[in-house]
């Protein structure tokens, strides 16, 4: 399984990508997160707060209950912040 980390997830794991072979019991994105948490303090920090974390499976946004297989590419990152910096504001009266 190819794993990719972006933004502060990458900074906390200390690596941008790696090949991993999680056990067969890892069947969903959430299973993978829980398995990764046990790999050391950097991983525990990166994967501690699920609410701040987003995932993609094979380059598509994926929910935490999405199924994964050994041949998948799985990426973890914070919520995206692309598209220019101009925020949306309320409509004028």
């Amino acid at each position, binding site marked *: 399984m190819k794993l990719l980390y972006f933004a502060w997830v990458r900074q906390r794991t200390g690596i941008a990508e790696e090949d991993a072979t999680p056990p067969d019991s890892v069947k969903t994105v959430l299973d993978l997160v829980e398995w990764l948490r046990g790999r050391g303090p950097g991983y525990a920090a990166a994967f501690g707060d699920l609410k701040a974390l987003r995932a993609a499976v094979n380059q598509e946004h994926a929910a935490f209950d999405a199924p994964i297989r050994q041949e998948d590419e799985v*990426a973890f*990152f914070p919520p*995206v*912040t*692309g598209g*220019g910096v101009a925020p949306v504001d309320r409509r004028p009266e």
Partner: protein
Amino acid sequence: MIKVQEQDFNLAAEIAALTRGRTDIGGVVSFIGLVRDVSDGAKVAAMTLEHYPGMTEKQLSAIERDAGARWPLSASLIIHRYGRLLPGEQIMAVVTASAHRQAAFEAAEFLVDWLKTKAPFWKLESDGGAESWVAARDSDDEAAGRWEKG
């Protein structure tokens, strides 16, 4: 058309290439996002845009196809830069061309809203010393949400 690139772009040249030889286009709407020197009240000296090569192109293409299915567009273009950018620099652009001006306006706004919530880009802002990752805004999710089919 999708362009993910580190270098800057020239909007007029991009629009000219998009509309060259076309005489059926009545209106072209564009949006350029620029780096601001203030973000949530804090000074920004520079920002670095990180992205997910491969997924970025896939997501931008999907978003562009979606816009083309919803509005009668003659042509469209999404450009998004990555790497280090200074205040005042161009970050991204969306261009939509249509025979009908309202379609071009709506599709451009739709694309900008979705880019902010779906395109896998992350902003690292620097105030000259400390660096921090920009958090996603609820208002952007809301803006993108208004295009969801009910």
